[in-house]
Each structure stands twice: as C-alpha cells, then as structure tokens.
C-alpha cells in the first residue's frame, strides 16, 4: 500500500477536525472535533509504524505504543473536558463558547463590568506594541 493513502486521509481528517474546532459553538461539539484531530494523528502513527518497522527495522514498534498512549490521553482528556464543560454549564447555564466572554477585551457593549479589568490589559498591550 502506498504510504500516501493513509497520510492523505489523516491530513483530511485533521483538517475536518480543525474546521470543527474553529466553527462549532457548542463546547461538546468542539470536543468531538478534537477527538477527530487526535484520531488523524493516530492513523499517521500506525501507518508510519508499519512502514518504519520494515524500512528502518524499528523493532520498538514505537508507532503502535504511542498510538495506545494517545488513545489513553484522549480518554483522560475527554473525561476532564466534559467535567469542565459540565461545571461551566452549572455555573453559567450555557455550553455555548461564544457566550463565555469574561476574559475578552472590552467592546462597546452591554458588559460594563468587564471594562475596568479589560482597560489595563489593553494598556499593557499598547505598551508592548510600542
């Protein structure tokens, strides 16, 4: 099998996940997209493991071991991530990321209490730019 097939499939899956992370609003949908990106990486690891175990006589099977590690990390990540999303949902009543704007820079808008904290931050930024 050409190595290009799994590599290209992996690129496409990764970019699909990238689109999902950037375009989705619901925090849980973003987590799903992150899973897609992690799986794209896993596919690459497995494909290169099969190739390198012949081409470079890699006897460690590092690709497959690291794939297992990635899967375990992903499971931990999804557990923690969902716990955080649930905590945010309880505190704010929403899991819509676009509405969680507490640390955003102040805009001319309804959120007056943000203005005091955001103003010094903006001042810092101008300083840094200068």
């Amino acid at each position, binding site marked *: *099998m*050409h*190595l*290009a097939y*799994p*590599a*290209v*499939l992996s*690129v496409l*899956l990764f*970019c*699909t*996940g*990238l*689109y999902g992370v*950037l*375009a989705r*609003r619901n925090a*849980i*949908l973003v987590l*799903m*997209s992150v*899973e897609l990106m992690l*799986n794209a990486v*896993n*596919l690459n690891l*497995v*494909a*290169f493991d*099969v*190739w*390198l175990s012949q*081409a*470079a006589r890699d*006897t*460690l099977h*590092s*690709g*497959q*071991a*690291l*794939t297992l*590690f990635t*899967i*375990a*990390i992903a*499971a*931990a990540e*999804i*557990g*923690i991530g*969902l*716990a*955080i999303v*649930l*905590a945010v*949902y*309880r*505190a704010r009543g929403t*899991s819509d990321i676009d509405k969680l704007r507490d640390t955003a820079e102040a805009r001319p808008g309804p959120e007056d209490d943000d203005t005091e904290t955001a103003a010094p931050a903006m001042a810092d930024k101008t300083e840094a730019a200068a």
Partner: protein
Amino acid sequence: MTLAASSPGFLSPTGVEIAFLLVGVVTLGAAIVTVTTKQLVHAALWLVVALGGLAVEYLLLTAEFIAWVQVLIYVGSVVVLLLFGLMLTKAPIGRSPDADSGNRWAALTVAVASAATLIWVVVDAFRTTWIDLDAATAAAAGSDGSTAVTGASLFQSWVLPFEALSVLLLAALVGAIVLSRKAAAEGERPPRSQDKAPSGKDKAESDEIKAASGKDEAASGKEGAR
C-alpha cells in the same frame, strides 16, 4: 529509501488499497457530517461511524490490537461520554440553527488552506513510499501475531512511559472528581456527574506519555525526509 524505486504506480491499486480508499471515503464523509450537521446528537452518532471506519483502517494496516482498542475506547466509551455530556447540558434535540458560530467562513478558509498545504507536502514527500503489508503480516505471524509483538514491545521497551501514564490517568481521575464535587457543593445534581467522570478513566487503562510521542513523531519525520 531503497523500496522507492520498485514501488508500483497509483493507477493499478491493489485490493487492500481499494478497500482502504472506500473505507477512507466513508470515514471522511462521516467526519465531515460530524462537524457540519445541525443536530447535536446526530453529530455524536456520525462520530461513531468515523471512529469505526478508522478502526477498519487500522485492521487494513495490520494493527489489530490498536483496532480493537479503538473500538472499545472510542466507539464504546468516549462517544457514550459525549452523549452523556450532551444530555446533561440539555442540548436541544432536533435542528439547532446556532450550532455553527459566525466565523465558519474563516474556519473553512483556514481548514481548506491547511489541508491543501499539508496534502501537497505529504504527497510530495511520500509519493513513492511503499508499505509492504504482506511482509508486515508475515513478520507478525512469525512471532505469534501483531498483538503479541505490540504487547512485548509495550512491556519491554515502553514500561516506564506506561507506568507514567497510569499516574497521569490517576491524576485525571482525581481531577475530574474534584471538578464534579466542587459543583456538587454548590448544590445541584451530584450523583450523575460523578458516575460519569470516573468512567472516562476506567476505560483508559491502556496507556501513555505525551513528551515521548512528540519525540517520536519528530523521529519518523526525519526518516521520511531521508
């Protein structure tokens, strides 16, 4: 690599390649529906198709153990956790018009641009690289199958990362419980979220270390460049 010169062309695909392409198309289609559908629960269900398709791809690449772990952990529990999450956050059933945020065109631009760049790079680098799956199968059969090989390398060469992974999973477990309990102290719905957080870790028994993985990818990149 020396295999490059003898690699067959793209116009006469082997049976395995055709199977890989067909499953790949299904996987990619399911992934695209996952990130575009307006029905949140459907997104989770299409994710099952995408992850299951990837498990088949692993089988085609002779990585049996990874394929079954993929089915157990991703299809079996990560998706269930995600569905639990959707329900606990009262995600709307049916179409929700605001599933995509306003920057979806920017997101599409970024995704298409990075896909084009990466495909160009990857195809240019690995156009002539050939994986000999028959040899891989034969090598695995010579040593009791690829699961035996994976197990041996995991518990010989990778024991330390493996143990470090169990510490990390313990930390994640404790972290999730702490997150859930703090919310419980404020007063709502403790039992459900507690059930759910630990289950994420249970299934993760398999293994892992992140720093090592970064190093290794760099190593394979180097091999590829040669």
